[in-house]
């Protein structure tokens, strides 16, 4: 099965033989993909069925919550922390980002861009919280409690003195140019680092 596009980009960008923590690792598909690169990947996942599936695939995954359980990892335990499609579901995204860069000097963070033109149109013309391809669940049942845009995230990391080393933007499954990414990107993947 092909990796989700944002995971494929991260899998490609993680250097060989590095130590990685995948926060919100699901059933471990990215970890399995990284195994071929000799990466020592560990996972944290909230859903016990996903944890069971990942362990059954031979992965090292701990059942836990990104909001609280990152505190159990020592400083610099990893080379990279990965938070894919999870930031917008956390209680305090700012604190989670700080935790990621405490346990690893670099982190990949991917999220759906709430400023994509479809989202803007849904609000502008429909007057309703958008339900789109990348944000498919209605406002009352979505786990996304902190919707975030590409510009919002840039503001956050700037305010926290965090360095952006690289950014990828996706429209559908395809990369899209950085120009007008705020409008055109459905998803963004940031590689951030301590400054």
């Amino acid at each position, binding site marked *: 099965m092909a990796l989700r596009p944002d995971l494929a980009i991260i899998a490609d960008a993680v250097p060989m033989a590095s130590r990685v923590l995948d926060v919100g690792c699901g059933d471990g598909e990215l970890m399995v993909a990284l195994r071929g690169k000799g990466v*020592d990947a*560990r996972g944290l996942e909230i859903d*016990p*069925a996903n*944890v*069971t*599936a990942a*362990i*059954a*695939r*031979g*992965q*090292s*995954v*701990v*059942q*836990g919550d990104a909001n609280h359980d990152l505190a*159990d*990892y*020592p400083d610099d*335990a990893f080379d990279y922390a990965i938070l894919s499609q999870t930031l917008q579901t956390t209680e305090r995204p700012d604190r989670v980002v700080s935790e990621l860069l405490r346990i690893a000097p670099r982190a990949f963070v991917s999220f759906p861009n709430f400023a994509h033109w479809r989202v803007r149109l849904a609000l502008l013309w429909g007057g309703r919280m958008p339900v789109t391809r990348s944000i498919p669940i209605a406002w009352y049942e979505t786990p996304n409690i902190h919707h975030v845009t590409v510009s919002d995230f840039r503001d956050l990391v700037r305010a926290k003195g965090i360095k952006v080393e690289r950014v990828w933007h996706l429209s559908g499954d395809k990369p899209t140019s950085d120009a007008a990414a705020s409008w055109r990107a459905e998803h963004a993947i940031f590689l951030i680092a301590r400054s």
Partner: protein
Amino acid sequence: MASLLHDIQHHSVTIAAPLPLDSGQVLPAVTIAYQSYGVLNADKSNAVLICHALTGDQYVASDHPATGKPGWWARMVGPGKPIDTDSYHVICANVLGSCMGTSGPASPDAATGAPLGMAFPVITIADMVRAQAMLLDHLGISRLHAVVGGSMGGMQTLAWAATYPERLASALVIASAARHSAQNIAFHEVGRQAIMADPDWQDGQYYGSARAPTKGLAVARMAAHITYLSEEGLTEKFGRRLQARNIKSFGFDADFQVESYLRHQGLAFTDRFDANAYLYITRAMDYFDLADPHDGRLAGAFAKAKDVRFTLVSFDTDWLYPTSESRRVVQALQSVGAAASFVELSAPFGHDSFLLDVPALDRLVAGALGTGF
């Protein structure tokens, strides 16, 4: 009957080397009864040690010689099972202090030949593990593919990782803890007092007599059995239903099904277990606290175990060894950078879930061992 129990022949080896114990005493030689399944490969790299629980034994996947019932983990161990004996050489040894052929309180005194009884030294979980290591030395197995255990077996597994981290690649710890809580100790003390209050116990020297403390041992088992089940499990199984009658007797017969069930469990237990062994093994569990030699820091116990792959599993209805105890171990492992997996599985059977039909556990065990299932 204890006398019948001690007449059973077990496959065993006597190792004529001293076993120093945590108490400071030394066993001059140790007999270890064990079973093995599957073929040990040429480079002796496929051995899996299974550690049994308090009242378990080495008959993990073969019929019990006293009761004739299938092995206690026959659903997990065998050809094509999650612990696949087509791939692994599985070893299970009766623990030190027990009553199925390994050295314990029913063993004879070297000088007199009479059963030791309470002259057998008090042993610990670490002592059990040292005895297992002596068995593996004897078998020429220097390193294990995995050590696996539930409940007290999980304690031994953790003690293995702490004591001999270089001798195992992975550790699978199910429904267990790195220490015995006040509540755990309290329940064990009830059981021990029940045994020692039985006049037939005779200060532990009942082996030669026609009497054995079966009543005390049965009560101990009844109390313990409650702790192995969940409240919802008991309610679902028995509720307030009456046993073979329509009305209450207004007496002290087993009116309720749950009473009848517990009495049966208690009595049946005495056919296959020795009261003194129950005293010694519960004591070993009560003394267990892996953090104790490290000033209360559990991470200290795993300082040299960072290359061992750990998998811990708890069950949401297990109040005897609750999820919080497994999490405590996971946190200690993460703090030393060991590869640790942990999941809390949902199962209705309480602590006993690790022995029962929980399909998710099967997948986990196979995956943690690297079989895929």
